[in-house]
């Protein structure tokens, strides 16, 4: 029983990270109907930005409080990732809007390769470790919960609440939802559709960068290929939850995290990715619209 609850805790932590990444996939899909395959690499890039901030801090400001360090890592990561994602949309995706459906998809895969190779060339191909930032572990009814797990879940909860508030309660969010539902009508009402799409890329990237920082803190290592597996899993989470649905992305992320950790705990860890992607395949076959997604309606 304790073992099971332990795995639940681990799964929720991992799932929080996937959920934060998945939101970026699902929002961009909702608003322009494309899968931004470079999003996973934006997550990895956010992790690298956080790593560089950490190294700078320990070099030049030894003894900086951990909370401040984490905050700076997240903020710089968010800004860097947002700038990159904004640029990618501006130069690579926007000119292809209205082009045939495959064009932006292929470009997105291209951008993914560009980003990971850029990091490989500029940061080197090896694993980049950092020492543990927060290492306290609490024992609770025989379950060990580490402080970093708590930090991850709490930060995820806070950010998702902020995000939910922006999307559902602010003029910006209303413009985003209007653009998602009918971009032509939104423009007729004075919404700058291009700008709204840019903001969506920026918001998605910021969340991914926080996820990247959390990932770095959790595993203590980041490498240029890290955009791929977590990226594809977060994409799976978005599809599982129902692509285009924000609560779906979070739910999907948590489920994927749980599946992964429970599978690793009770079956073979080597096959955990197989389990995850089998679920993607099964969902696509039996419920293409996902758990909380709505059935595809042809837009006229």
């Amino acid at each position: 029983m304790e073992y099971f609850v332990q795995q639940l805790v681990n799964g929720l932590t991992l799932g929080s990270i996937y959920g934060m990444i998945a939101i970026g996939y699902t929002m961009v899909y909702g608003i322009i109907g494309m899968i931004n395959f470079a999003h996973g690499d934006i997550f990895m890039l956010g992790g690298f930005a956080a790593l560089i901030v950490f190294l700078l801090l320990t070099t030049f400001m030894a003894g900086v409080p951990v909370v401040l360090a984490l905050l700076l890592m997240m903020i710089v990561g968010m800004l860097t990732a947002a700038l990159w994602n904004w640029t990618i949309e501006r130069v690579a995706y926007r000119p292809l809007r209205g082009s045939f459906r495959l064009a932006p998809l292929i470009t997105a895969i291209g951008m993914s390769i560009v980003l990971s190779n850029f990091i490989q060339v500029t940061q080197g191909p090896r694993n980049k470790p950092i020492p543990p930032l927060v290492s306290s572990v609490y024992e609770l009814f025989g379950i060990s919960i580490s402080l970093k797990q708590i930090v991850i879940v709490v930060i995820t909860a806070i950010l998702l609440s902020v995000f939910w508030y922006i999307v559902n309660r602010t003029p910006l969010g209303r413009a985003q939802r209007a653009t998602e539902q009918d971009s032509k009508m939104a423009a007729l009402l004075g919404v700058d559709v291009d700008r709204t799409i840019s903001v969506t890329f920026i918001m998605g990237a910021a969340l991914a960068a926080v996820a990247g920082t959390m990932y770095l803190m959790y595993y203590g290592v980041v490498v240029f290929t890290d955009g791929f597996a977590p990226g594809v899993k977060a994409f799976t989470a978005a599809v599982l939850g129902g692509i285009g649905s924000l609560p779906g992305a979070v739910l999907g992320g948590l489920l994927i995290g749980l599946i992964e950790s429970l599978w690793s705990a009770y079956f073979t860890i080597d096959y955990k990715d197989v389990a995850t992607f089998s679920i993607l395949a099964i969902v696509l076959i039996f419920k293409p619209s996902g758990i909380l997604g709505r059935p595809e309606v042809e837009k006229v």
Partner: protein
Amino acid sequence: MTAPLLNVRGVETYYGNIRALNGVDVEVHRGEIVSLIGANGAGKSTLMMTICGKPQARSGSISFEGQDITRLPTHEIARLRIAQSPEGRRIFPRMTVLENLQMGASLDNLKHFKDDVEKVFTLFPRLKERQAQRGGTLSGGEQQMLSIGRALMARPKLLLLDEPSLGLAPLIIKGIFEAIKKLNKQEGLTVFLVEQNAFGALKLSDRGYVMVNGRVTMSGTGKDLLANPEVRAAYLEGGRH
């Protein structure tokens, strides 16, 4: 005569290689109700959308309050206070009625929202009952009201209405036409409307245009067009049941 509020000159619009508008000239003056009638596929809705820059005219010019808007992006045209209730109504289906109206008022950041929404609710009491309901669950008539209401929320200088009577019961059509007339009389709202219901539209309008195959073939006061035998034969006699 003073310069027109909206001036469309020699506009040609294409969908790919197909020419939908072929040298259209239309003008709308401040305080007027002008209607555009014509058969299905004549290009009426295309003209409405071309005025809003979606699609943009390939040649010719469109000016509003003396400013050339032919090449402006759609959202900037909207910000000049040209509001449209477009073909197909285009209600945001997963937003509530109230949110749809808020979208209409977003140019002023909801500054006048409270007052204006009351006006819309007075005009269309049904919307008040339905305000918390999602747009996609409304009936066709309710969506039509919402679409017009949403356009009014922008405090437009020019209101473009694309077939406000489409799919509505005669009694509701009468109500909507009366509402348009009232807004025009009391607030001096300028209205340019497209209608299949030629009789109702011309009766309501100061002036009218007849469009055939992407061209304006006739124009005149509403009264003259109603009396014109050609117009009667083509658009009125058949459709007055």
